């Protein structure tokens, strides 16, 4: 191949994919930014008037939804890490010949509809269902009511139900990157730590966990980002008091038809997430992730 053609090859390969993303991902983002500073109505049409007040109005009215979204997503991410880490560890080091079977079970939920599984939680957490009655009997619900995460003798339509649903739905996104980075940890390092009189806990704290950090960072991002924009769990498992920012954007866009507000809200959400992700990646020192 002559050098000129060789220089051109990567661009030819890239052409279709990059064009697709530029037209259907970047252009809409730019367009959305312009929509957010437009004013007008559906029948008269919208025009760019640099009406930045939309942002202030949107923030003033919907800041609780933003706070709630980031809070729920944060708690769900922490819960995913707490639940997912032991499972990823088990698959990587303790599952033996069951490893592939467990892996299949972790990935399989991806192939059952997200919505159907969330609806199943409605059945599980139903009032008077066995789970709620058990939690009530052992007084767990008293404690959670006191913490204001549930209300009375029910779990559905409370923050607990929404966070539980978020945790469940995004758990595989946490487990897979954790497993990938734990799998690379050389088991001989554990033996070496043991030979140097480290207890199991010290080995974990000083050897295994630091080596799995790239997986922790990737997993928390993959969980936090979709969870903060999700509205399915809040809609199906929560009540009007648990609405997240996704619910507001969806309602503004599909029902109220107030496109500038919807655009401003999603622009703020995008900016907030990009800011959090950037700071997080910097702080955790795994910039090669991107």
């Amino acid at each position, binding site marked *: *191949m002559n050098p000129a053609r060789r220089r051109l090859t*990567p*661009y030819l*390969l*890239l052409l*279709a*994919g*990059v064009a*697709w993303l*530029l037209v*259907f*991902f970047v*252009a*809409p*983002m730019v*367009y*959305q930014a312009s*929509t957010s500073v437009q004013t007008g109505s559906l029948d008269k049409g919208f025009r760019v008037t640099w009406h930045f007040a939309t942002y202030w109005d949107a923030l003033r009215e919907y800041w609780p939804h933003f706070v709630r979204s980031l809070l729920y997503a944060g708690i769900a991410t922490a819960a995913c890490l707490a639940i*997912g880490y*032991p499972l990823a*560890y*088990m698959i990587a*080091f*303790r599952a033996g010949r069951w490893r*592939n079977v467990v892996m299949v*079970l972790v*990935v*399989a*939920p*991806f192939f*059952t*509809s*997200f*919505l*159907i599984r*969330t*609806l*199943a939680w409605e*059945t*599980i957490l139903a009032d008077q*269902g066995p789970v709620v009655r058990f939690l009530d009997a052992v007084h767990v619900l008293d404690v959670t009511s006191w913490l204001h995460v549930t209300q009375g003798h029910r779990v559905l339509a409370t923050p607990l139900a929404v966070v539980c649903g978020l945790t*469940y739905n995004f758990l595989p996104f946490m487990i897979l990157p954790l497993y990938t980075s734990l799998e690379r940890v050389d088991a001989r390092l554990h033996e070496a730590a*043991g030979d140097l*009189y*480290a*207890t*199991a806990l010290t080995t974990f704290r000083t050897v295994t966990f630091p080596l799995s950090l790239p997986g922790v960072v990737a997993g928390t991002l993959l969980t936090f980002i979709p969870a903060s*924009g*999700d*509205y*399915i769990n809040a809609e199906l498992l929560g009540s009007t008091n648990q609405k997240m*920012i*996704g619910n507001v*954007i*969806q309602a503004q866009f599909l029902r109220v038809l107030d496109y500038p507000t919807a655009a401003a809200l*999603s622009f703020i*959400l*995008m900016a907030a*997430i990009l800011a959090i992700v950037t700071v997080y990646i910097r702080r955790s020192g795994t910039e090669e992730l*991107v």
Partner: protein
Amino acid sequence: MTRTTRTAATRTPPVRTSPVRWLRRNAVVVAGTLALCYLMLPNVVVLVFSFNQPKGRFNYTWNHFSTDAWQHPCGVADMCGSLGLSLRIAVYSTIGATLLGTLTAFALARYRFRGRGATNMLIFLPMAMPEVVMGASLGTLFLNMRIRFGFWTILIAHVMFCLSFVVVAVKARLASMDPRLEEAAQDLYATPLQTFWRITLPLAAPGIAAGALLSFALSFDDYIITSFNAGSAVTFPMFVWGSAQRGTPVQVNVIGTAMFVLAVLLVVAGQFAGGRRRSARRTV
């Protein structure tokens, strides 16, 4: 001093009679198994309730056993139509995203060129963007371009968000490939095209397959982005969402269970085939 005695104690073989010690040694396995149960619970519920005959419209409480829904999976109006639409969109968007994504991955993995970093960033961004943001912005664009919402707008959106996942899967596979195999082929007088078809593509195939499988699952399951770009078209997730308000038919559970079983069988078959190929190679 206390430290050494403690390690010495844990290093002695486990004593069967102490459940506390057993629990201490296997805490990870216990916690992991519990996590797995948490992950499996809704699937079990979906399976069990696919055999329910609900009393009212809502399939939330157990009434009595019936195989009605399994015998008439299309007994609900519009459900199988939406399933067909979802499958069609999933197949087409998988083909589109896999094709575009594989080409992009080859460029990124095999060439050093100006704008490579920017391209990597462009691929990463859709994965770091909440679905509502992507769905709403694309919807706004279509709306203002006066493009009719429907099959094509859904397909465009799905190819867009599946693309990045294919690129990541294929790129990872290409990065772990031994470049010497291709050099060897060239040394043996294979033309570049022959090298590509007989060496590169077969070696990259598992990555491409993984990307395609992921695309299919993502596309088939997507509700959020679709809801902004569907207009009056109804995909299967949209049907489920709509029916959730007025009572989900049992048939939805049948489809959910069938998909789960199919997926497990598919992955197991893939693992089996992979295992066979590996052992065959070992015997050669």
